[in-house]
């Protein structure tokens, strides 16, 4: 038999002025199971709480109902009080008779009547409350950062700084990402390599950081605090532990006609290669698509020249399994492919380039050693046209609906750098809008226009047509003067939209995190939890969550690191006990619950059961991981058999409240 205590709070006059609290206490005293019903001036005060505690002990209460303010205010207070008196804190229910009764009603009689009903509903519910214990789950004190661009590096450094082990998994042979390819950075125009490479080295030298370059994630299991990740270390045919990065193999390699992806295919590299001088780790990699030894067993020069014997043609993919407490996703972005943009002649005219290609063309480590020359004839370009929003803010299938955010600024940067270095070159920028919010951004853009005389034209380029004389006819409209323009350009630079890396989607599936329709990772809350994914223990860093420039990326990377550190600091996580659970005897194994779970908390297993007809059967049944479940209850309604129920808000509890209210 239940022994329920009811405690009605006056809240000074906040409640007592419109609700006859004594009448409420009296009415609830008559409810089945209620053994004591009291009212008090301020139930949340020290002495009020003592009243509750004393009653719990004196009457050996099995449940407590407090009729007071919103549970959002003091539910925790009274749970703690109950706990202190030896009653499970989840045997406390609050009837909200202030915010949802005394404060909104004026007539004492009807407000009192309503308060009684709310009290009865709480009593009915508490009858069915069960003691709940918040579970604890240990935290593995190691973090995984997926992606080794500036976001990943910054996150890893911050986590390592806090004293935790952290692994970076990078799919390319070197970390550094897109920033390593960039020449100068806006709005300060300092050299990207100069600020990035020291960080790369720092990451490599930090003893808390392990870099898995040329590696991918192949499997993720587990949950917050306790992920088990399988990392695929792709065969690079060079023993990382032996290679000194001397580069002799790359010099001697006879296969020299491999498109160099670091320079956006604008020049060539060898089959055995180190992507760039400051690569980290500075280890050679053999490209099996081009290496003659790997393709047909003829060559082997690199192996002969390597003084440390690092070349290993027999190397295969290796799989490493590691446990992590937190995972940070920093998979970054890529410019979209422009092969569908026939109007810009990108596919067939070498002098129509993307902005990232321009970065390489202008970079001292690029194909031309830093001198801006046209790719086609290596001549100095005198007229350059920049086209903004290529594929950004697009409604059609070719492009992306969103603003890529960084293009306005880097184009201003490019224009300014060109005008600075080659004053005889005319620069035209066609734009829809120039968007420059950000510290010193608009000033930067205005300098390009005012100080450097860049021609900004509001309008869209309609057609880019390469001409026989080597120049390019750019046909465009000037929306402000409302006229059609033809510009004879030497080069055209397209500001291609950026999109999440293609590896992000399968990764999101493995991590059971959510993505938006553009494949950007969805944050747990757009305003209040911007660097956490909705899946506990998975954090977001950099452009994988949305387009970002470098300062924003670094800021978010550190924020993600802070969140990860916050998690790793704990020895264990206290789980919310109000989570779903499945009654295996009723579960059909139909997977409906799993499909609506936003957290991937539900898994299935085949279990042997003794059936009512005395046979045994193997049935597929759901089980909920209480450490991952957040208690939304979506699964409980998706489940047709009612096998899935929610602690603290069970079907029977809610129905008992319904019954009490409608009675």
């Amino acid at each position: 038999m239940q022994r329920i205590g009811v405690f009605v709070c006056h809240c000074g006059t906040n409640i007592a002025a419109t609700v006859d609290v004594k009448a409420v206490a009296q009415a609830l005293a008559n409810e089945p199971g209620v053994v004591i019903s009291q009212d008090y001036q301020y139930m949340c005060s020290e002495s009020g709480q003592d009243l509750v505690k004393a009653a719990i002990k004196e009457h050996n209460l099995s449940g407590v109902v407090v009729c007071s303010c919103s549970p959002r205010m003091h539910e925790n207070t009274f749970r703690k009080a109950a706990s202190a008196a030896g009653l499970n804190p989840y045997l406390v229910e609050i009837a909200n008779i202030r915010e949802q009764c005394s404060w909104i009603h004026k007539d004492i009689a009807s407000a009192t009547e309503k308060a009684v009903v709310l009290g009865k509903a709480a009593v009915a519910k508490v009858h069915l409350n069960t003691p709940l214990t918040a579970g604890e789950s240990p935290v593995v004190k190691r973090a995984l950062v997926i992606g080794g661009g500036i976001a990943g590096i910054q996150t890893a450094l911050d986590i390592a700084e806090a004293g935790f082990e952290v692994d970076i998994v990078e799919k390319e042979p070197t970390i550094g990402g897109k920033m390593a390819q960039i020449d100068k950075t806006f709005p300060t125009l300092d050299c990207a390599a100069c600020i990035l490479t020291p960080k790369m080295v720092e990451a490599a030298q930090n003893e808390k950081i392990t870099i898995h370059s040329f590696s991918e994630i192949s499997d993720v299991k587990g949950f917050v605090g306790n992920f088990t990740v399988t990392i695929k270390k792709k065969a690079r045919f060079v023993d990382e532990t032996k290679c000194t990065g001397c580069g002799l193999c790359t010099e001697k390699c006879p296969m020299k006609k491999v498109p160099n992806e670091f320079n956006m295919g604008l020049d060539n590299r060898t089959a055995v290669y180190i992507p760039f001088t400051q690569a980290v780790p500075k280890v050679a990699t053999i490209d099996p698509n081009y290496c003659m030894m790997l393709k047909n067993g003829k060559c082997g020069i690199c192996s002969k020249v390597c003084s440390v014997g690092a070349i290993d043609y027999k190397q295969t993919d290796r799989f490493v399994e590691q446990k992590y407490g937190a995972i940070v996703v920093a998979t970054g972005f890529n410019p979209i492919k422009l092969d569908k943009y026939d109007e810009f002649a990108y596919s067939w005219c070498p002098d129509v380039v993307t902005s990232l290609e321009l970065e390489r063309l202008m970079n001292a480590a690029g194909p031309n050693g830093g001198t801006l020359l046209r790719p086609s004839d290596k001549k100095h370009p005198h007229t350059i046209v920049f086209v903004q929003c290529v594929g950004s803010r697009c409604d059609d299938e070719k492009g992306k609906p969103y603003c890529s955010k960084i293009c306005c600024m880097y184009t201003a940067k490019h224009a300014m750098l060109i005008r600075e270095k080659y004053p005889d070159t005319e620069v035209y920028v066609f734009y829809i809008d120039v968007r420059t919010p950000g510290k010193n951004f608009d000033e930067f853009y205005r300098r390009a226009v005012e100080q450097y005389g860049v021609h900004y034209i509001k309008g869209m380029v309609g057609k880019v047509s390469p001409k026989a004389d080597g120049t390019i006819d750019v046909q465009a409209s000037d929306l402000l003067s409302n006229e059609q323009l033809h510009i004879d350009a030497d080069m055209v630079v397209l500001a291609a939209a950026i999109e999440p890396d293609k590896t992000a989607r399968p990764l999101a599936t493995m991590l059971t995190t959510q993505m938006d329709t553009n494949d950007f990772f969805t944050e747990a809350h757009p305003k209040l939890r911007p660097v956490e994914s909705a899946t506990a223990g998975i954090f977001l860093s950099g452009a994988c969550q949305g387009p970002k420039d470098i300062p924003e990326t670094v800021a978010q990377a550190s924020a993600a690191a802070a969140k990860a550190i916050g998690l790793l600091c704990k020895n264990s996580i206290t789980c919310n006990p109000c989570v779903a659970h499945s009654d295996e005897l009723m579960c059909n194994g139909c997977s409906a619950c799993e499909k609506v779970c936003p957290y991937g908390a539900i898994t299935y297993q085949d279990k042997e059961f003794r059936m009512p007809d005395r046979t045994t059967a193997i049935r597929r049944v759901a089980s909920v991981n209480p450490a991952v479940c957040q208690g939304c209850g979506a699964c409980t309604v998706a489940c047709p058999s009612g096998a899935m129920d929610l602690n603290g808000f069970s079907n029977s509890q809610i129905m008992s409240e319904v019954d009490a209210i409608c009675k």
Partner: protein
Amino acid sequence: MFRISAEKLNDLFDRIASKQTLYIPVDREDKAAEYKKYESGMTLSSALNTVRSAKDFFFPQTENLAEFRLSGKTIEVKDIRSEHEDFVIFGVRACDARSFGILDSVFLSEPVDTFYKNRRDHGTIVTMACTRPEETCFCTTFGINPTMPGGDVSVFPDGTGYSFLANTEKGKEFMAEISDMLEEGNPAQLAKVQENTRNILKRLPLANLKTDSFGGERLMKHFSSEKWAELSESCIGCGTCTFVCPTCQCYDIRDFDTGNGIKRFRCWDSCMYSDFTKMAHGNSRNSQLERFRQRFMHKLVYHPSNHEGEFGCVGCGRCLSKCPISMNIVKVMKALEDK
């Protein structure tokens, strides 16, 4: 024997209905027949039988037994029994009429089910002889004569009218009330109709079905028969056969919490259901085979064993036409009978 011509039948109904509640079989929109409370202008159904049997009048699907009123911490028990009003069921076929006897043997034996008895005491059964049996009919298997349907009053249609014959005291009282509307009967015409019906009965596809292989003494033989597995394998475990059956009499007693108290009621139960006779230890019959076997063993073996050889089936054929997967007592009997 007294007679009324067909065109005056509704006048008769009006008369009866002016004195007590009258139920007659009428056609629904889907052409299936059901008993309805008579209202002036209703037409008697020409269908052989109703979808639901006439047992509903004495043993309704749900029936309130008691009430508990709850106020605060006190409980008050309320007896809600009241005397039932007199009523007449018209047009009951011979099979259903026999089923009342089978129900009586259960409900009226000690301890008497007073709810059932109350309804039984106040009901007058006016039966109707069959003239056009269906292919699913096999009442003769159980010794029922559909040309002499029994009940308190038997009615015999002859094509142009109906002859009435009182069989009981209650029947005679009923006849007395309507005697002024009746004329003298024509026994010769009636005999011709009955002769014709008897000839059809001999030609029925199930006319040769016999009960010789069944009865209490065959218990162990049939109980352990290997045929049950095959017979029950496609049974979906619904309650259709039991709910349309005129002799199935199992019920469950349940409490419904209205919020202000408890309403205790009984409702039909089906031995085909997986939770039938579920007790604290679990269920006594856990497989559909056992449940299926129970139903037919009850009708063909246990019932005659407990009730002086009377089988628990009247051959009305409802389960034959209504079982979702067309498994029925005839198939069971044919599978189990001595070859």
